[in-house]
């Protein structure tokens, strides 16, 4: 085993960590741009800042962890956990698909349950894909 799969050297580990940092930084810039674009428009949504922060930091963590776990089965496990996190987050943050904004004597309610259902289906498909990828990875012989 040790002959077939040599222990990754410190240099390789360093490259992997650096790659994970770079990917996370790029994602961070992306989420920052999204924040600037949406914060003015969606400032009236209740708890928008908190919810956005949870989503951005959550996905940044998964980006870093998945990049770090590249080449191991943990990568697929993390993909599955990320999909679960997104399902729970989307259902909670969107109040099960119904958002309400209150102005002075004016209320706007947007109901998008079919869209939320679609997002949940996408994440379930992502879980299925993660499982299949994990099976495929586990089935691979070290030679492959």
């Amino acid at each position, binding site marked *: 085993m040790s002959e077939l799969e040599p222990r990754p050297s410190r240099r390789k580990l360093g490259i992997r960590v650096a790659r994970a940092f770079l990917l996370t930084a790029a994602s961070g810039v992306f989420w920052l741009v999204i924040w600037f674009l949406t914060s003015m428009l969606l400032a009236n949504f209740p708890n928008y800042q908190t919810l956005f922060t949870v989503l951005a930091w959550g996905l940044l963590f998964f980006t870093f962890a998945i990049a770090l776990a590249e080449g191991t089965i943990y990568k697929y496990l993390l993909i599955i956990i990320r999909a679960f996190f997104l399902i729970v987050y989307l259902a909670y943050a969107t109040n099960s698909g119904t958002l309400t904004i209150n102005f002075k*004597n004016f209320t*706007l*309610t*947007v109901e998008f349950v*079919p869209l939320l259902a679609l997002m949940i289906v*996408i994440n379930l498909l992502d879980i299925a*894909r993660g499982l299949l990828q994990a099976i*495929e990875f586990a089935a691979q012989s070290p030679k492959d």
Partner: protein
Amino acid sequence: MNKRFYGAHPLRLTIKALGWIIALLWIITLILPISVVFSLMKLAEGKNMGIQEPIFSLSNGNLSLTIPLYINNTGFYDISEVSVKIKISKANTAIATLSKNLPDIPAGCMINASCNFSASLNEIFQRHSTLLTEDADLDVDAALHFRVARAIAFNITQNFPTRWGAPFQNLTVYDVAYNTTAHVFSFSISFNNHAFFSINEPLTIELYNSGSEKVGSTFWSLNVPSGESFQGLIEVNVDPAKMTESGFIRLFFGGLKIFEEGWTLP
């Protein structure tokens, strides 16, 4: 080679297919709300929507409100489940709830419709008869509901106060007289029509003696436009046998008692 082709390939293909499906669904999920917002912005610009002068009318004891409107759906998606709901309340007590469903508006089509609300005077004023004789501050909750692309529904509600103008504001009965020869009881009434509708329903006048026995009654045809004052002399033929020195007058409008006051002959 054979093992690779028959064993690993289908799983990889499935994973790849799932990846494409997921990417495609995410694109649809993100594009749909953005395009719905653009669609609504297109609809809101220019003169694609308009409300014409509301028409109020009062006939056969029913109060009707007609709001003609037109919508030109220049957006990308059909608009369905369009409904308007209006709730009028006084001091948190509902007076009337009116709702109307409008037809679906397919993309690229224009519709001319009208919101017709109708309620009987009895229903409205039964619990709040003072609204007929006293101006009041009312609360209006107006709600507009519609669904775009059959996926995203919008519900816009607005609460605003409004001033209710009573149709019989300052209703007063005076100059009571009785002609003993002709057995005619007469009195003058006056009021201001502060309501937004004309009064063209008959007024029923009932005259009672001190023993609460009806001594006479009559109808009085009214035609008082909105914002006008009314003053008139009403004469009631009475049963002389039941006539007393005092009693009370009751006025009814649309089957509702709007006024009761005692009278004493001079």
